[in-house]
């Protein structure tokens, strides 16, 4: 194997030799540069492969003397990986910058080559002064590359950069020379053994070395110069700085941290945390894409510093965690910077233009999801491992800090993505694609997926992940050019086959949810046949959501569960954001989901703590802070069930989604949260639950959610929002039922789970289909549609009867069980609130059916057709389900009861044929249904006999205000119908929760806006920041 020292030969020799290349042969120079970088990559890559296969690390001596007397380089596994990474990204970056570099001429090409070479040596060198020299090479080369685009901004940024790095390296130099003075050596390993930190002066020297490396890493807040460079430089250079330089510098920090000794770990972690949170918060106000990426890069480095600070705790896992985060950052940030260079829009709002080329949107999405830490990217697994280990070792505040910072990052990244995916792009100039620019972006995107897959294989739990659904999603993604009909059929067949294959392996409880997810998914997909064209992007994301859902059900380990959870979140986010006007709602959905996921993550971490296993069964035996753990799990799941306080995303998200997406995300997706809550409550011990306050609080929350959801639904003018609020309310019932932790409560809850799936799917499908026909969501713009869409009317009528709980339809089963459960449990007030909510529900249900189907038919709807047959098919299949459940409730409730009995054996229903008994009463579902149907038919017969000659009249055959109306608009009572109720209850409709969240976000944004003004653009101020940073760290770490 060739000695790694020849990286220098290749890099420097190449750079010097470029001087011979004639000025006119620009291509030749650029090609030589790429070849040189590729050669360095091959060299380091071959070492990496060898080292992975068990070769031992190699020391490279120079000058024929052994260290510490001469400078030595080390090629170990870490060095091999990082140098290969640097060369790889250098090659891609070189390809990306090909034209720029060519234009700028041989000199620029030399600088780029030296830059990459310098980073290689920085990573490998074991001599601290040599490190200084090559750091200087890298920063001077950077200063040169920054001005590759000779805009005024770039020059300014470059000057600030020079000034700042000049001062920083001065500080480093002082540190180095005093380190030499105290230890007599310049070798890093020698310095490690010399422990100069123990001396008074030595500790200062060490501090100066460490702080200058931290500053080179652009640690918040002394990093204004770095941000300016990220913003001012060419995007391709930004990518190099963010991916390559940061990678190299991070490794330098690692080397020197070993040298500085373990007492520095804490400080590095602390500074990292400050940097991570600080820059992510400040980024909230950022509108410039490249500067935003700069903030994000600094944040990511902060996170990596935290990991480094915990290297002793993470132990052998440190490389796994660090590399997972680092490589996600490295690929994704490079990709995003490059995209920024292709799109050429500085304002993030103008990134909507990227949508004009959908595959670019896909690339951007890949990078953003990788940065936030979604599966299947490496950062997901790394973050998981990190949180698990930190919680396991009791470092909860750190976990909270990390997740808070990540949350902030999610805010601005998803806002940006939201603009890209939904923003106005009519008037923005389209961008051009150059092969050399898109190639590297594509490669890093693919690399993210590939590394993600292999990262997963690295751990036992990760290797157990079932990738088949994801591969199916990928296949559908590739087939996206096919028409809807084909893709829909493939999707349905795929889901059906999958369900058929796995259902025998599931226990009853999981089967219930899996059936809702899969059968519900298939039914709602049938409605997809109603769409024409290609429906670009719909099928991959819909199936992604279902892949996530089934992964949660099948999960054997908490990692698999969380993996599925995040996939489901990602898929549903894309589904939701497809709707018109759904941008802000998509964002809030994502943020609540991310927040919830982080709560879950901590909760699962606490479950892991002390149990040393990742099996799903660990949530049954949480011993570490169990109250908190279960509480966090529940909060996490409540974000998906949209409990009051965490619900503000739902109305918009469900209301603005596409017609067949609303039932997916409402009837089906919300059950994922319920599934989680069920798991948690079972984990808490079922009947022998020893955490009484949690279910108690949960019960109240459920009751209040039910009340507010239903009340808000009453005042909606938008049909789909009405249904969305109704879902909030219905989920409140379910939560209350489960929270009772009794057999009857759970039976009621499960009966609602099934029922809500059935009727909410019916209602959303029908209303969605109606909306497709009448082209409006506003109920007051509809009316009288029963004449045009009788089948839709029947569906909605049965749906609302089932929802309202009026006997004889299935909804009553839930109500009856609830009353009994409430009485048994003694939660009278909660119960009363819930039943009052039921009364309120009646109002919005009437409003829904009346203002849409009854009243006056509008002139512009006189010719609308019945809703599409493809909607009617699933709707009527679901209605059949409702009818069966209504007439034979025992068919559903008995198996559910048997299932629940395993956790709640006491207080079961007793069945006598079709009659259910509790100790408070009994209910004969079938008999009641029969009685009512008979009575109904008798009365109907009487009426038919009596009015057989009824004369059919027309719409306007009424009188009103002394006139015969002729304009339906003036006669249709629909707008603000519950004015009276509003006057009485307006106080309960004040959006306190929304206001509160708005206040929180405003506060964060205002803080960001004020604090970021420290970056006033003056290079001198930045120097003051740097000196202040040094002083503050000195006084904090060493003390006066």
């Amino acid at each position, binding site marked *: 194997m060739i000695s790694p020292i020849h990286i220098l030969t290749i890099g420097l020799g190449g750079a010097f030799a470029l001087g011979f290349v004639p000025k006119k042969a620009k291509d030749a120079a650029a090609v030589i540069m790429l070849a040189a970088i590729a050669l360095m990559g091959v060299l380091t890559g071959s070492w990496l492969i060898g080292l992975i296969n068990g070769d031992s690390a190699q020391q490279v001596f120079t000058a024929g003397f052994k260290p510490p007397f*001469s400078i030595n380089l080390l090629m170990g596994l870490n060095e091999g990986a990082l140098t290969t990474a640097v060369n790889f990204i250098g090659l891609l970056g070189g390809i990306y910058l090909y034209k720029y570099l060519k234009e700028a001429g041989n000199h620029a090409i030399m600088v780029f080559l030296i830059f990459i070479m310098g980073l290689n040596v920085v990573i490998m060198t074991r001599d601290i002064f040599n490190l200084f020299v090559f750091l200087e090479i890298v920063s001077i*080369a950077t200063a040169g590359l920054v001005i590759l685009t000779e805009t005024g901004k770039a020059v300014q940024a470059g000057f600030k950069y020079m000034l700042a790095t000049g001062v920083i390296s001065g500080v480093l130099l*002082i540190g180095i020379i005093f380190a030499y003075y105290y230890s007599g050596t310049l070798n890093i390993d020698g310095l490690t053994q010399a422990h100069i930190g123990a001396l008074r*002066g030595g500790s200062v020297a060490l501090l100066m070395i460490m702080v200058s490396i931290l500053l080179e890493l652009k640690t918040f807040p002394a990093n204004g110069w770095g941000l300016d460079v990220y913003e001012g430089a060419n995007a391709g250079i930004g990518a190099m700085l963010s991916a390559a330089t940061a990678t190299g510098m991070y490794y330098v920090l690692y080397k020197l941290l070993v040298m500085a000794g373990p007492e520095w770990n804490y400080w590095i972690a602390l500074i990292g945390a400050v940097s991570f949170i600080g820059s992510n918060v400040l980024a909230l106000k950022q509108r410039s894409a490249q500067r935003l990426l700069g903030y994000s890069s600094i944040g990511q480095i902060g996170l990596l510093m935290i990991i480094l600070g915990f290297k002793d705790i993470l132990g052998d896992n440190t490389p796994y965690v660090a590399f997972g985060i680092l490589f996600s950052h490295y690929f994704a940030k490079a990709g995003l910077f490059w995209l920024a260079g292709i799109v050429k829009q500085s304002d993030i709002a103008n990134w909507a233009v990227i949508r004009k080329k959908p595959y670019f949107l896909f690339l951007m999405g890949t990078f953003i999801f990788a940065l936030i830490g979604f599966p299947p990217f490496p950062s997901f697994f790394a973050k998981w491992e990190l949180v698990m280990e930190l919680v396991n070792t009791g470092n909860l505040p750190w976990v909270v800090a990390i997740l808070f910072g990540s949350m902030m990052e999610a805010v601005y990244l998803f806002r940006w993505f939201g603009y890209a995916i939904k923003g106005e792009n009519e008037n923005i100039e389209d961008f051009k694609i150059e092969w050399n620019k898109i190639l590297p972006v594509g490669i890093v995107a693919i690399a993210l997926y590939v590394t993600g897959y292999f990262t997963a294989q690295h751990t036992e739990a990760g290797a157990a992940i079932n990738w088949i659904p994801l591969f199916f999603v990928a296949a559908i993604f590739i087939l996206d050019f096919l028409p809807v009909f084909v893709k829909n059929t493939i999707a349905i067949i795929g889901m059906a086959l999958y369900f058929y294959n796995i259902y025998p392996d599931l226990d009853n409880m999981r089967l219930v949810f899996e059936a809702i997810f899969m059968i519900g998914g298939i039914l709602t997909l049938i409605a997809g046949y109603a769409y024409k064209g290609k429906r670009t992007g719909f099928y991959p994301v819909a199936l992604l959501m279902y892949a996530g859902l089934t992964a949660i059900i099948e999960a054997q380990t908490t990692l698999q569960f969380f993996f599925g959870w995040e996939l489901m979140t990602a898929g549903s986010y894309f589904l939701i954001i497809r709707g018109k006007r759904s941008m802000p709602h998509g964002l809030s959905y994502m943020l609540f989901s991310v927040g919830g996921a982080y709560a879950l993550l901590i909760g699962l971490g606490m479950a892991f703590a002390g149990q040393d296993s990742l099996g799903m069964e660990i949530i049954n035996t949480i011993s570490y802070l169990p109250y908190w753990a279960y509480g966090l799990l529940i909060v996490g799941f409540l974000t998906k069930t949209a409990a009051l306080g965490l619900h503000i995303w739902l109305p918009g998200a469900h209301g603005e989604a596409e017609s067949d997406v609303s039932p997916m995300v409402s009837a089906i997706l919300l059950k994922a949260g319920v599934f989680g809550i069920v798991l948690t409550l079972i984990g808490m011990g079922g009947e022998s639950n020893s955490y009484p306050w949690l279910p108690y609080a949960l019960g109240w929350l459920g009751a209040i959610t039910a009340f507010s959801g239903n009340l808000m639904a009453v005042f909606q003018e938008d049909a789909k929002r009405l249904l969305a609020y109704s879902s909030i309310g219905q989920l409140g019932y379910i939560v209350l039922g489960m929270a009772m932790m009794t057999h009857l409560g759970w039976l009621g809850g499960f009966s609602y789970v099934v029922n809500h799936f059935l009727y909410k799917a019916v209602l959303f499908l029908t209303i969605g289909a109606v909306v497709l026909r009448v082209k409006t969501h506003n109920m007051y713009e509809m009316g009288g549609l029963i004449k045009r869409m009788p089948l839709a009317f029947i569906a909605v009528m049965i749906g609302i009867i089932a929802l309202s709980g009026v006997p004889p339809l299935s909804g009553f089963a839930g109500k009856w069980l609830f009353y009994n459960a409430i009485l048994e449990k003694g939660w009278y007030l909660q119960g009363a609130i819930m039943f009052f909510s039921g009364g309120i529900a009646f109002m919005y249900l009437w409003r829904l059916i009346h203002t849409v189907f009854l009243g006056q038919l509008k002139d512009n709807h006189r010719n609308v057709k019945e809703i599409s047959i493809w909607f009617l098919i699933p709707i009527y299949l679901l209605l059949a389900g409702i009818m069966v459940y209504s007439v034979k409730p025992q068919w559903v409730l008995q198996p559910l009861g048997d299932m629940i009995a395993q956790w709640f054996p006491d207080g079961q229903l007793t069945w006598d044929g079709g009659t259910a008994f509790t100790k408070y009463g009994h209910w004969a579902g079938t008999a009641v249904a029969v009685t009512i149907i008979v009575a109904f038919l008798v009365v109907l017969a009487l009426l038919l006999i009596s009015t057989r000659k009824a004369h059919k009249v027309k719409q306007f055959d009424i009188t009103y205000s002394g006139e015969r109306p002729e304009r339906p608009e003036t006669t249709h009572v629909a707008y603000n119908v519950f004015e009276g109720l509003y006057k009485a209850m307006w106080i309960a409709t004040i959006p306190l929760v929304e206001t509160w969240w708005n206040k929180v976000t405003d506060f964060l944004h205002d803080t960001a806006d004020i604090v970021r003004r420290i970056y006033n653009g003056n290079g001198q101020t930045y120097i003051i920041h740097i000196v202040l940073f040094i002083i503050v760290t000195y006084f904090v770490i060493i003390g006066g």
Partner: protein
Amino acid sequence: MKKLFVFIILIALASMLYPLLDTFHGNDKLSELSQFYAQSENVSKVNAQNLVTAVVVTYRGLDTLGEVTILFLAAAIIAFFLKTESEKRTLRKNSEIFKTAAKMLVPIITMVGIYIFINGHLTPGGGFQGGAVIASGVILMLLAFPNMEFNHKFFEALESISGVVYVGLAAFGAIIGLGFLDNAILPLGKFGELFSAGAIPVIYSFVGLKVGAELSNILNKFKSVQAEN
């Protein structure tokens, strides 16, 4: 106000530097590292009379390579940064005395520079110093003959050739198994003579040429850009 603030910051910084000053007590003997360099068997291994040069070119040769690279980088960056437009301008003519003196002095200065870097392993001095002296000659020329057409191609070629040779010599050591930048690739010669210390004088000569060329290039760039302004 700002100055007061900066003053306070500097006081604080001084208080941070104070422990360094306070614990500094001079050296009574060499550090271990230097003792090694000063051991006679090691001295003879490198065989350079000037120990500093031995350290610079051999023991810490990699630093020197980096150092050369930095100058090279600076020159390259300035070259593509300050692109000159060939705009002529007329400057005040210098006096004959100045011009004649310059013409006489420049060869001598160049000679001195070359002497310094060739003897870098024997006497104080070396490639950088020599290169800088040569560059000072170039300044003199630039000052004396502002309108002179500067043959930058020559200097650039010189620069490249020196660089490639330097790297080549360094790598040669590694390839033949002695070690990157080992000066023993050439005969070590007799201690204290011009042809001693192996590759050091060769390396230092090329470094000197390179530095001289680079500095001259930089100066020339500055001059021509200034001309634009």
